[in-house]
């Protein structure tokens, strides 16, 4: 396992990683959201010994903590992982893998750029300018939680409160779009 936190600082992440022995990396610029077309977390990508992507972006959890909220259980994904690691079973073909992840649109790429500018300006102490960029990023990629939800704690909002609930309703109403495989059942 290599865990990558799409977070601004190590302090934001440390409480979640106590006792973890596998690598935990910090990605404040959200490079992975661009390189791998990741639009929400948690997203899991299976990579083999030769850097092949065997199973692309999927929403997958380690525990059933969020099952009621998302409909995703941890068990089925863990079964697939075991079959891969023990028996080399790849759960989908390369064609299926390619079809699973839509590319980022131009607006989704630009949203990432605005997010980075916003994050930088916030670090520089210009919250007003930062918010303008976070808002523009959210306008360009309204269904992307690595943009809209990630910006909440950076603009004084609560990613687990009312600010998020409205966003989540919008997301569901749009059919819960995600760049990748739906939760494993």
């Amino acid at each position, binding site marked *: 396992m290599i865990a990558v936190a799409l977070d601004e600082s190590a302090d934001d992440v440390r409480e979640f990683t106590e006792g973890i022995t596998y690598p935990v990396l910090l990605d404040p610029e959200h490079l992975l959201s661009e390189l791998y077309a990741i639009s929400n977390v948690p997203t*899991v990508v299976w990579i083999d010994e030769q850097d092949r992507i065997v199973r692309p972006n999927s929403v997958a959890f380690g525990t059933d903590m969020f099952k009621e909220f998302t409909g995703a259980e941890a068990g089925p994904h863990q079964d697939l992982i075991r079959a891969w690691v023990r028996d080399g079973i790849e759960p989908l073909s390369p064609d299926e893998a390619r079809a699973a992840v839509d590319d980022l649109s131009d607006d989704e790429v630009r949203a990432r750029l605005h997010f980075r500018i916003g994050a930088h*300006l916030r670090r520089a102490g210009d919250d007003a*300018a930062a918010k303008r960029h976070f808002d523009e990023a959210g306008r360009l990629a309204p269904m992307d939680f690595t943009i809209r939800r990630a910006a909440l704690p950076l603009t004084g909002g609560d990613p687990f409160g009312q600010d998020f609930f409205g966003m989540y309703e919008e997301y569901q109403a749009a059919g819960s779009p995600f760049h990748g495989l739906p939760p494993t059942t």
Partner: protein
Amino acid sequence: MVQVTVIDEAPRVVDGAVVDGRIVVTPTALPQALGWELKPEGICRDDVCVPVRDRDALFAGDGLDLAAVAGALGRAVEVDADAAVFAVALPAEARRQALDALTAPPFTLADLDGVPHELAEWRGRKRLLVAFASW
């Protein structure tokens, strides 16, 4: 001359100027700004040169317009002229590598103690790359 912040994989500062809302650098500062160099053959990096049809269009006065250079490289750009900040997209080829070639694009990120790690560090092993967040 002002301090211009260029953000690709991370923010960094270069000397430049803001001319008519455009962020410019001297040609000699282009490698530091974008990692590419302007040569007679075009915009070059290592052995690769991207030919430029309209060289004049790359300039704003005597300075290179970073947005124009990035555009010539096919890279999306967003600018905050007031703050002198320029953000340029990662090469789309890297993302194509993931989505079309199903090959994990490389990256270097620091761990929680600030020590950088490359994805290649774990080549030769099966890996689950898990993107998560505190939000």
